[in-house]
């Protein structure tokens, strides 16, 4: 019930409901009250214009058009409802036939319905109007049957959805007859969407009827519905425009009301609308409401000129349904020339957002604040200019996580690579394509000339990822930012991609920022590792020290959680108990405290700062390096003592 009430809350839903109720009331009451007024012939007042006694003027017999319009409501609504009923019933039969009849006949019915659906309703209606004759009965049958294929298709889809469910299979296995299943299980479950679609269908039937009567094929004299009134009215539109406008407006209001009413219910109940035409306000969107968060400043670092990337106090905030979401809460790091820095963390740690932020790809919805955000000397906090675009397009390469969706499926691979050169390096089409083919070869894609003319779906996942890297190499990048580049790939393919990255680094001295949740990958490829948790860097250490010299409890737990060749197979796998922090709701104090075995009262109250040690490593923990007892840890780790 509450869902239905929610329909009334939107302004459109409310208006539509009120109007629909109004129309129905009018249909019921108008003939009772005003039939005599509507039928009163007055031949001395033919085709008069609107006046005080006749609000919409009079027709050829001097009858009041306004009252005729009101009284016509009943017939118009009745006929529309009758036609809808026919459409729904026949549609139900057509739609449940495949389920009842079995595969072969069912397929025939489905094929027939599909062919019928391709034809516009009006054409079908005319066809049936010929068969059933003109007049109200013929028109009802015509419009009803014309709408049947649409309902049939909808019912088919709904039935198929339910039939695939487990409880139906169970019933079938238990030997319950198809008809029984249909009535007991399937129909009750599809009733709601059917009813909603039927309401919208009633609106369309009303409009269709108006159309048929307007053509003269529907209601015949002396009966009259809105369409017939329109038919009469348009012939005298120059003499008394109100004769056409009054029924026209009536049709409009009633049709709109029914349609919008149905669509509002659909939206309120979360039901899909037949025909696939998007319902009102389909796309979800975020409310605005950014909050400026402040962070305690981190100590200033050096402005070394062979820094490829220099980030100080980066914060990224997104608007959320119940307040701002602070995805990155003030991090600072640098990446030197040719250096490979890995960023690890669980999902929600802010590592991907960091990657986007340093690539200037966060977009309009998020706020990026930083005291410094330099890429090769260019300040990324400024607005993007053409120069910046060209610069970023050639100096920075991005590799995203999902190779299956990262390329435009409708364009050939070669042209997607060539695009970079054409836009940023001013190459003409041929040279750009040559370069693209060259890059494809450089990333070890076989037969690059052929491949360049293929579409992305013809590449395998690994090849696509390599092509992505190749696309980044169209310029001469100084930095590659790779966000989970191997997560979606097979292990063997993973290795190929990682090898490629390594080769590029060594050959061209290209820096790399590699984001991953997989510690082993990072350990293998990177020189240095940043560990992020809840939007903060909690540890910064050389990759080689990860297994042996990690100090932050979270880092140590991460490393311990990865099984290796020496893990005791008899013991349960090591895990980090608890869940990652919700970025919208970061607690005071150390964010890891709730899951940390070393957590103390101080941890829960005070957030530890990131402190730099002599060797250039950093860690943010009140109990850094203390011995800890990782629950259900492997034997090896239990004996490790922190330096």
């Amino acid at each position: 019930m509450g869902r239905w009430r929610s329909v009334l809350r939107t302004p459109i839903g409310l208006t539509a409901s009120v109007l629909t109720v109004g129309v129905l009331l009018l249909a019921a009451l108008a003939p009772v009250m005003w039939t005599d007024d509507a039928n009163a012939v007055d031949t001395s007042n033919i085709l008069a214009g609107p006046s005080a006694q006749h609000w919409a003027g009079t027709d050829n017999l001097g009858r009041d058009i306004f009252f005729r319009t009101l009284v016509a409501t009943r017939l118009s609504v009745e006929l529309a409802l009758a036609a809808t009923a026919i459409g729904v019933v026949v549609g139900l039969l057509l739609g449940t036939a495949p389920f009842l009849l079995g595969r072969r006949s069912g397929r025939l019915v489905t094929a027939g319905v599909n062919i019928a659906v391709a034809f516009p309703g009006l054409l079908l209606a005319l066809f049936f109007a010929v068969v059933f004759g003109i007049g109200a009965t013929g028109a009802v049958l015509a419009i009803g049957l014309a709408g049947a294929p649409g309902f049939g298709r909808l019912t088919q889809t709904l039935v198929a959805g339910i039939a695939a469910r487990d409880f139906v299979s169970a019933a079938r296995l238990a030997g319950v007859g198809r008809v029984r299943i249909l009535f007991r299980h399937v129909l009750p479950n599809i009733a709601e969407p059917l009813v909603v679609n039927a309401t919208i269908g009633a609106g369309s039937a009303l409009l269709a009827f108006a159309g048929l009567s307007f053509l003269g094929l529907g209601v015949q004299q002396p009966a009259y519905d809105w369409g017939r009134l329109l038919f009469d009215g348009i012939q005298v539109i120059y003499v008394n425009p109100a004769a056409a406008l009054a029924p026209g407006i009536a049709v409009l209001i009633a049709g709109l009301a029914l349609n919008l009413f149905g669509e509002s219910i659909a939206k309120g109940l979360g039901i899909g609308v037949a025909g696939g035409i998007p319902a009102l306000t389909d796309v979800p969107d975020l409310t605005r409401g950014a909050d400026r968060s402040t962070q305690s400043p981190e100590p200033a670092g050096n402005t070394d000129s062979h820094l490829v990337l220099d980030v100080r106090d980066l914060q990224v905030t997104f608007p959320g349904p119940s307040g701002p979401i602070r995805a990155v809460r003030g991090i600072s790091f640098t990446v030197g020339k040719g250096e490979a820095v890995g960023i690890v963390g669980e999902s929600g740690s802010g590592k991907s957002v960091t990657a986007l932020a340093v690539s200037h790809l966060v977009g309009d919805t998020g706020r990026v604040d930083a005291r410094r955000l330099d890429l090769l000397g260019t300040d990324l906090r400024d607005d993007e200019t053409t120069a910046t675009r060209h610069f970023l397009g050639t100096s920075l390469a991005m590799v995203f996580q999902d190779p299956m969706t990262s390329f435009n499926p409708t364009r050939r691979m070669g042209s997607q690579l060539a695009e970079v050169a054409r836009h940023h390096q001013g190459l003409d089409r041929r040279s750009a394509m040559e370069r693209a083919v060259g890059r494809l070869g450089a990333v070890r894609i076989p037969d690059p000339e052929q491949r360049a003319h293929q579409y992305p779906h013809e590449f395998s996942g690994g090849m696509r990822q390599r092509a992505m890297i190749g696309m980044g190499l169209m310029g001469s990048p100084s930095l590659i930012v790779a966000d989970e580049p191997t997560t979606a790939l097979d292990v063997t393919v993973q290795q190929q991609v990682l090898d490629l990255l390594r080769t590029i680094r060594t050959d061209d001295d290209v820096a790399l920022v590699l984001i991953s949740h997989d510690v082993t990958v990072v350990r293998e490829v990177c020189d240095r590792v940043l560990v992020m948790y809840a939007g903060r860097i909690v540890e910064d250490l050389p990759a080689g020290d990860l297994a042996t010299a990690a100090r932050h409890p979270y880092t140590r737990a991460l490393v311990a959680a990865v099984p290796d060749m020496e893990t005791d197979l008899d013991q349960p796998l090591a895990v980090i108990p608890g869940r990652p922090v919700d970025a919208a709701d970061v607690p005071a104090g150390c964010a890891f405290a709730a899951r940390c075995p070393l957590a103390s009262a101080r941890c829960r109250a005070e957030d530890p700062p990131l402190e730099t040690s002599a060797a250039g490593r950093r860690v943010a923990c009140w109990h850094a390096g203390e011995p800890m007892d990782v629950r259900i840890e492997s034997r090896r780790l239990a004996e490790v003592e922190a330096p």
Partner: protein
Amino acid sequence: MALPSSAVAPDPTVGRPLAGIGTHPWVRFGVRRLGRLLVSLWVLVTASFLMIHLIPGDPVRAALGPTAPAALVAAKREALGLNDPLAVQYLHYLQDLFTGDLGTSLISQLPVSQVVAQRLPATLQLALLGFLVAVIVAVPLGVAMGVATRRGHGRRTELAFTTTSVVLGIIPDFLIGVLLVFVFGVSLGWLPVAGNDTPSAYVLPVLALAIGPAAILSRIIRVEMVSVLDADFVRTARAKRLPPRTVYVRHALPNALTASLTLGGLILGALVAGTVLVENVFAWPGLGSTIVQSILNKDYPVVQAIVLVYGVGVLLINTLVDVALAVLDPRSMIREG
């Protein structure tokens, strides 16, 4: 004896899409699509043949009336070949269709093909213009709206646009036509409201025909654009630092269109059918006004022929849409079936 590895021929089809023309995706697609078109055409032709035979009672009697002399009815039945068995009639019907003989009008005694040939150009003009206007308005509008209301943007714009386009999409074309007649013809007197004599006479009918489909199409395109703009490959395009216009038009739009095309095809098919209503509002001398008159007069051969013409038009549109879809998104060729 072991062969040297160099003598082993590489797999000829890997990376060589043109190898084996019979298995080329375009050929397979073309054959499948043509097959589907032919089947639908056959269903259409059969349906239009059956239309007359589905009429309860004797169609000749129905056309001539209960008191017509029996001899007349018999003669007409003989002339129309209605005494032959159904299958024979069907074959004759198909034969005649192939030779372009659509029968003779029961009312005017003129050959139906002549009637159709006379009235078809006006309807074609109207439909084509309507189609062009709808597409030319809907695509840029949908794209612009999509960009303006992409994730997190333009909430108010979205509400205004969606409401307007929903309302315009629901209002039937003949009502829009009547309103246009009233405003521009009767009240303001700027534009002609009947006939197709002057170029300005095309304005209102085309508008009436195109407004609804344009509204629905632009709505669909907007939604698809918004969804596509969120896709990974758009992020890639942005990462490549392409200018925004290139991202929207060369990357996002083709993908939004592929998703919109199927529905777009249905909408354009409905536009063609809409000519029946619009022609009657504007006294347009085309097939739409003829078919209504013929139905009222029970002139069945004419009705049959015009139903065929419209049906073929719709099927052609659907086929063209599928081809356009295949051109835009080659994956759809493979997905077919």
